[in-house]
C-alpha cells in the first residue's frame, strides 16, 4: 500500500521532522511557562 503524501527522497517526510518538531514544541512551551514566572519575580 502506498501513502500519497510521502515519496521521492523525502524518506517518509513527516515522521522525519517529527522529533525536531516535538522537541522544539516542548522547549517553547517550557520557555513560555518559565518566562511568566521570572517576569513575575522581576515585578
Amino acid at each position: 500500500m502506498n501513502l500519497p503524501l510521502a515519496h521521492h527522497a523525502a524518506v517518509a517526510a513527516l515522521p522525519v521532522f517529527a522529533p525536531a518538531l516535538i522537541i522544539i514544541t516542548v522547549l517553547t512551551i517550557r520557555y513560555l511557562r518559565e518566562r511568566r514566572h521570572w517576569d513575575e519575580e522581576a515585578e
Partner: protein
Amino acid sequence: MNFAQIAQATTEAAPPAGGAELLQIALATVAAGFLTFALLYLGFGHRSGRVAFLGRLATDAERRTGLPGWAALPAGIATVSLLTALFGMYWDISLHIDNGRDAGPLANPAHYFILAGLFGIFTAGFIAMVLPRERPSDAAVRLGRDWWAPLGGVLICACGAFSLVGFPLDDLWHRLFGQDVTLWGPTHLMLIGGAAMTLVGIAVLTVEGQRANVAAGRAEAEHGSTRAMRAVALTGGLMLGLSTFQAEFDFGVPQFRLVFQPLLLMLAAGLGLVLARIYGGRGAALGAAGFFILMRGALALAIDPGLGQTVPHFPLYIVEAVVVEAVALAVTTRQPLRFGLWAGLGIGTVGLAAEWAWSQIWMPLPWPSALFPEGAVVGFLAAMAGAVLGAWIGAHLSLEPGVRRPLLRQLAVGSAALVAALVALALYTPTREGVSADVALRPLAAGEVEATLTLNPPDAAAEADWFDVTAWQGGGLVVAPLKEIGPGRYRTTEPVPVDGNWKSMVRLHEGRSLTALPIFLPSDPAIPVGEVPAPPRFSRAFEDEHQLLQREQKGGSPLVVTLAYATVASITLGLLALIAWALHRLAFGQARRRHAAARTLSPRGSDA
C-alpha cells in the same frame, strides 16, 4: 519535429514517481518516536539530575579537548554528523545521476546517511542547550529560571531543524510540482543550506567555550591539538559546506548557466578562506584548503572506485589560500575590512585564474573562452563580496568584546545584496529558438551509437559554453564533448547509449540559453511520458533543456507557485536573520551585559 509530439505513451512498468510504502512510513515513525523519547529523556533527565549519561560524556569530552564539555561534546557530535550527511549527499547525488529516481523512500542507502547526519546536527544543538548547569557565556540564551543555553547550541539546533523541515516541505513540493531532478530545487537547498550554516553555529559555540575558559582563569586549558583541529577542521568544514552548492558542476550535469560555477566557487573561497584566516590565525586558510582537499579527495575515492558511482570532482582552493595567507603577512586581520578587501582582490584575480586552469585539468566541464569576460567579472565580484562577508563574520567570532564597525556592516549588507543580484541575473535563461540538427546514428556495440550532427544554423555552437552529449540515469553517466569535423558538423567522441533507461541528449549552452536535443529517452508511464526513439536518421529542434532534464516536473498555478516560493524564502530569511542576530549577540552581548550591570549599580543610569 517537436520531441513532445513524437513521444507516445506506453504501458510498460516503471519505478513509481510518487508514494511510499506503508511499511516504510511505519518504520520511520517508530524510529522517530524512539529518537524523540531518547532525546527528551536524556536531556530533561540531565537537567533534573536524574540521568548522568550526558554529563559523563561531556566530562570526558572536556578532559580530551580542554574546552568546556557543553561546547566540546556537541561540537564533536555536530562535526561527525556533518561529515556523515556530506557523504550521504554526494553518494545520493551520484546514485540519482547514474540510476534516476528511487524505487521508494528507503530504497536508497545514501538516504540513511543524510538522515542520520541531519538528525545528528539537531541532536548536537539540543545537547548543547541542555548541558550547562550555569550560565555558560554572556551571549547565552535564557530558557528558564536557572537554564541558560549556549547561543551556539541554539544556532546548531535551528540549523538542524531548518534542514529537517526541508524533508516534509520537499515532499509537499514534489507532490505539487513533480520531482525537480536538480540539486537546486528550493527545498533541496534548504537541506544542504541548513547543514552548511551549522558550521557557523559550531564556531559560535566554540568561541563561547573559549571565553568561558578565559573567564574561569583557564585561558590555556584548550589543548594544542584541539586548537589546531578547531582552526583547520571547522574552517575546512565551512569550505566543504559552501562547496556543496557547486555539486551539479562537480558531477558534470549542471542545469544552470556555467557562470554559476566561478560565482559559487569564488564566493566560497572569499567567504571561507578570509573567515578561516581571521578566526583560525596564521596558516588556517592553508589548513582549511588542505582539510577540504583531504575530505573531498577521500569522498571522491569512496564513491569511485569505492562504490562504483560517478565521481564528484572538486575545486582546489589552494592558490586562493596561499593568496590569503600572503595578504595576511602584509595586512593585519585585526583590520578585517581592509584585510578582506585585499584578500578578495587576490582571490578574485589570481585565485580565479588558478581555478580556471584547474577546470581544464580535471573538471568535467572545462571553462571555455566563451565564459570570458562574464565569468571573470562575476567571479571577481563574488570573491570580493564573499571576502567582505567572511571578514564581517570573522570579526564577530573574536574572543574579545566586539568593536563596532559600521562601514564593515554596511558593506556586508551590500555584499549580500550583490550576491543575490548576481544569482538573480545568472538565473535568467531565455531559450534561443530556431536551432535544430540533422542527426545520423551509426550503431557501435549493442545499445550504443556514434552520432553525427549537422547544425542549423551551422554557427549555433561557435560561442558555446558547453556543447556535449550527456547520457545519464541508465546505469552511469556519459559527458562527452562533440568534435567539429566540418563547418557546422560535429561527431560524438564516446559511445552514446540509446537503450534501457538511459536518457541521452545533446546539450547546448550558448550565451544565456540552455537547450538540448534528445537522442533517446525511455518511456516512463509513472509520470507519464512516452519514449523518444533513436532512429538511424532524424531531425529535431533544440528546446528548453529543463523539459528534458526534469521530465518529472509539472507546473502549478501562479498563486500556488508564489505561495510555495514565499514560504521557502521566508523560512530561509528567518534562519539568516537568526544567524545575523546570533553573531551580533556573540560580539556585543558581553558589553551589553556589563552596561546593564553598571546601570543596575547606578539606579539613575549614571556612570558617575
